[in-house]
């Protein structure tokens, strides 16, 4: 009995589901109304981040339409209700937001506002804007004002600041910022400004050039003047005069005696001090014995001395050896002292 009553009730409800039952409208009317609203919000939803809600409303409306066409009214009604909820959501989120609707002309946001960061110093909004204060758009910039601290026009070496800061890129090229000036004490020895700077003198850290005429270079390696105390030689205009004779073994060219070598070492030191000097080593004898023998002996003794000097490091090209025999006596050969003086070696300067 109860079941029969229910089935007859459902038979009565079916036409109601087909034709209305959604807020007093038929499903078709309801669908049309929803369709209009969904279309109405499309553009605004796409513009204002409501794409998900818009897509959901549209899809459910399509599903509702398809269900209606196939006579599935209950399913269609469910989809329409879902659509309705999304449309309500769109309405609540988008209505009143004019920026979401392109057909509504919006006045541009005023300058110096969060929506418009442009600065228009004539606009009241911008009255307190930093760039409209003493560092505003006018040409009279007050660089002393704290607000102007970061203003590019107040950077060093600009027309407004008058400040010179040689470390600032703006000041590059300024005459005041050249090296060795008051504003730029940096020393650049290659710069003409620094020519007279003591730090750029020769033989300094900044200028390692050696100039032996400069007092700074007195201790420089190439400038050291060696003053050697020589006991046995004196350099004259034409000779290296020796005050101690070089002794040889009798009738031989073998040099003997410690002092003989000391004399020769002094000669070596002179030749070292004057590296361009060239010498002739002369060998002389007394007149005792045969002329030919004496000539030969004097030549051998001169050669022996030359050889010693070469072994001591003197270049051979700077030395010439020549034996004169008894032909150039300096004392009387008739006395023993005279003969002893005539047996000698001399060092004649050929060139300095």
């Amino acid at each position, binding site marked *: 009995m109860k079941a029969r009553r229910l089935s007859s009730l459902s038979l009565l409800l079916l036409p109601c589901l087909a034709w209305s039952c959604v807020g007093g409208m038929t499903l078709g009317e309801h669908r049309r109304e929803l369709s209009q609203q969904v279309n109405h919000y499309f553009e605004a939803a*796409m513009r204002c981040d409501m*794409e998900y809600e818009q897509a959901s409303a549209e*899809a459910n409306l399509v599903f509702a339409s398809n269900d209606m066409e196939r006579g599935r009214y209950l399913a269609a009604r469910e989809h329409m209700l879902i659509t309705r909820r999304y449309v309500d959501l769109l309405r609540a989120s988008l209505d009143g937001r004019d920026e979401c609707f392109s057909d509504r002309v919006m006045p541009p946001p005023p300058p110096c506002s969060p929506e418009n960061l442009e600065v228009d110093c004539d606009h009241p909004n911008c009255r307190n804007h930093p760039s409209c204060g003493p560092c505003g758009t006018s040409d009279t910039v007050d660089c002393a004002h704290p607000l102007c601290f970061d203003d590019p026009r107040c950077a060093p070496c600009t027309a407004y600041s008058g400040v010179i800061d040689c470390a600032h890129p703006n000041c590059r090229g300024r005459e005041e910022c050249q090296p060795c000036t008051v504003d730029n004490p940096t020393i650049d020895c290659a710069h003409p400004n620094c020519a007279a700077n003591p730090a750029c003198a020769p033989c300094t850290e900044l200028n390692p050039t050696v100039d032996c005429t400069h007092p700074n270079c007195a201790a420089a390696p190439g400038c050291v003047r060696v003053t050697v105390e020589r006991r046995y030689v004196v350099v004259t205009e034409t000779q290296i005069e020796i005050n101690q004779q070089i002794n040889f073994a009798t009738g031989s060219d073998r040099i003997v005696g410690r002092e003989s070598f000391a004399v020769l070492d002094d000669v070596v030191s002179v030749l070292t001090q004057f590296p361009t000097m060239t010498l002739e080593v002369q060998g002389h004898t007394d007149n005792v014995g045969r002329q030919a023998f004496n000539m030969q002996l004097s030549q051998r003794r001169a050669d022996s001395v030359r050889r010693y000097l070469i072994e001591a490091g003197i270049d051979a090209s700077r030395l010439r050896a020549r034996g004169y025999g008894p032909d150039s006596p300096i004392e009387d050969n008739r006395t023993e002292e005279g003969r002893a003086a005539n047996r000698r070696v001399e060092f004649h300067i050929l060139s300095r």
Partner: protein
Amino acid sequence: MSSQELSRAAVDVQVATRAAGESGAVYEVTLARLYLDKAREEWGYNRYRTSLAYARSARQHAREAEERVRQADGRRRGGR
């Protein structure tokens, strides 16, 4: 009808979702997902013809989503 079209649609929607990320082509991706869900639902009711239609629509929306993401990427690169 086999379930191939449903599978294809599922893959396309997945690819479009990945391509779009979280903030790209939300409209198209949402449509594609809803149509795919609907296609599966219809399949469950053995309404294969309707399911096929929804699956095709899902694939179409997935393609549109990818196209929109591509265009957005192109604009971003061009703007740099």
